[in-house]
């Protein structure tokens, strides 16, 4: 298992709301702090990442901006990527601009499926190929915050589909390059982010299976995010039950009623046990090492919180299945 910091391209994926953007940001922060030149690219209509890293940050847009030393962020907008691609292919920016102004063209593109995914991955390929003046890679590590699974797999499958739907021409050739990149274990890693609950756990198992069987994108570990830490100290594993046994009339000045204390304690114990159980299931069903990230009590925003998660993410010795 090559350390995450030494990868070229990490595509973070998972169900909606599992923490993909948080994980992408956390990895970007520790990698940049470790001296890597990092690009983190958010895919989709909205930008969340800059504001997670630095609350209140302005959007970074397609051109991107450095959020910290060695940490560049951008959002890949498919139309902008398409304009750039056509500009490179045709060479005449004016022609491309007029094509984009053509209403029929916009209509055609708005209605056509698939090209957004392809052009987005094409842009990632282009970024991966970029070099600086010394001929070194422009970025050491590129992190892509991919759309939620379901769409996430479609996203990765599009180059193959285009390869078989288009018979000839540059498009076919370029789709081939993209496909080679995302299937190459030396360059690409898909990093699934899951939550340790029943349905996300099952979906993750399905995702990994489909990745292995159909899509062929390398995956070597699963991130299980927001795991509730053990809530009670050693020797007090049944604290919730003890609280429930306290006399109902007991009043602790400055504290909620004991019944409420018992209910809250039971909630945390329930979540912790549930998380532990489903983490185990994810490990067994995917047969992959698991990296767990704690559920942070005060949210996962800002550089400090993200660094905590980032270090947990890159710490070696992930739990083996």
């Amino acid at each position, binding site marked *: 298992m090559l350390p995450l910091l030494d990868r070229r391209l990490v595509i973070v994926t998972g169900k*909606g709301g599992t923490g993909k953007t948080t994980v992408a940001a956390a990895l970007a922060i520790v990698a940049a702090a470790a001296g890597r030149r990092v690009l983190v690219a958010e895919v989709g209509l909205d930008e969340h990442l800059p504001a997670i890293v630095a609350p209140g940050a302005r959007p970074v847009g397609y051109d991107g901006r450095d959020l910290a030393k060695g940490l560049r962020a951008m959002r890949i907008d498919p139309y902008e990527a398409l304009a750039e691609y056509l500009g490179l292919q045709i060479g005449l920016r004016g022609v491309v601009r007029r094509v984009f102004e053509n209403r029929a063209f916009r209509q055609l593109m708005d209605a056509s499926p698939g090209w957004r995914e392809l052009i987005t991955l094409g842009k990632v390929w282009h970024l991966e190929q970029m070099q600086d003046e010394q001929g070194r890679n422009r970025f050491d590590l590129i992190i892509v915050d991919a759309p*939620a699974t379901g769409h996430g797999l479609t996203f990765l499958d599009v180059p193959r589909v285009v390869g078989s739907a288009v018979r000839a021409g540059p498009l076919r050739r370029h789709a081939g390059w993209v496909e080679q990149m995302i299937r190459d274990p030396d360059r690409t890693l898909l990093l699934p982010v899951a939550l340790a609950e029943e349905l996300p756990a099952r979906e993750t198992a399905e995702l990994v299976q489909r990745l292995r069987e159909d899509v062929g994108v390398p995956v070597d570990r699963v991130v299980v995010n927001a795991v509730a830490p053990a809530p009670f100290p050693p020797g007090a594993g049944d604290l919730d039950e003890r609280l429930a046994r*306290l006399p109902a009339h007991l009043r602790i000045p400055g*504290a909620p009623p004991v019944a409420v204390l018992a209910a*809250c304690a039971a909630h945390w114990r329930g979540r912790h046990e549930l998380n532990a159980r489903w983490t185990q299931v994810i490990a067994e069903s995917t047969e992959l090492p698991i990296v767990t990230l704690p559920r942070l009590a005060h949210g996962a925003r800002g550089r400090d919180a993200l660094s905590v998660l980032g270090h947990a993410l890159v710490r070696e010795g992930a739990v083996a299945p």
Partner: protein
Amino acid sequence: MKTPLDPKAVIRDRRIVVCVGTGGVGKTTLAACFALEGARLGRRTAVLTIDPARRLADALGVAELGNEPTDLPRERLTALGVPPEGRLAALMLDMKRTFDALVARFADSEEARQRILGNRIYQHVSDALAGSAEYSAMEKVFELSEREDFDLIVVDTPPSQHALDFLEAPRRLLEFLDSRLVQILLHPAFAAGRLGFRIFQRGTERVLRVIERISGVSFLEDISEFLLAFEGMSEGFRERARQVQDRLVGPDAAFVLAASPAPQATSHALGMLDRLAAARVPLAGVVVNRVHLWPGVGPTPERVPEQEQDEAAVAALAAALAADAGADFPANDAARAALACADGYAGWVRDDAESTAQLEARVARSGGFVRRVPELAGDVHDLEGLVHVGDWVFGGPASGADAGRSEGA
């Protein structure tokens, strides 16, 4: 403010109930829960999921869901209080099969049908590319609503960034078929590859040249042939798309928004309200799922105590715990942990109330219902779990009080 709708009345009276919402908020669970309530009210109910992740099959406890309705066994339904006239069937959209069936229906000849199904472009757009889920889902809903053997159709919409892709799919498809470029590609001579671009207006010519340059001329020919094959059926298709849309925004249908208190989920949900309003789709209500509620106060959270750990409270609680424990019980640490659990939980309750206030107030103002389902200790993964969720959605009219609180906030 109008009298809010009642979720139970919606399930009892409407013919189509569409659950919208971003991914990860429990839309599929909610759809299953609505469908179960429909069956319990004695309606013959079908629930359609588009979710490829099989959540619905899991929750309903059926092994496989297919493109045709599968009935839940009668014994199970009876045990859940479904009367004999009620029925609950579930299906999972098979995009390819549904689209193929559509083609078969509208193709004007067997030859046209074969030509489409064999076309390279068709083989891909109909199943592999993003967006076709919505086209097919619309079609399936319509097909179900035409059937005589179901009274209620509950739809779980595809996970997508644009909640309304689903609703807008037919319009986009029509716009696409009507667009000038497509009309040109529909020219038979174009498909035959004999026509130069020169006869077109300059703008169009330029676009075609760009596409050709990138994709090769054969791709344009394939597209053209595909569209040509579609042309014969586009009238039927157009008519159908119009009917589907009419039915979905008509009085027999209801849209319910599924949301969760996660800040991103609520901002998505607010965006969705705007888009629904712009599309003139009336919203029946919102269900906010996985809300942390303060123990013992039921569905309406009251003010939650916010407190620093107070050493006297730690000592008093430690003493109470120690009274009933062995000498080696870490009473002090345990008391601290117990208070921390309550503080942590109170934080969730406060955050959730704050992040959902605006959403709930907006829905309530427009006369929609507002329901909260608490974050349950376990997962909702079986029929009993669905009944439990249903108790929160269809139980007492807590929404009025909720809305008042939210608007005051």
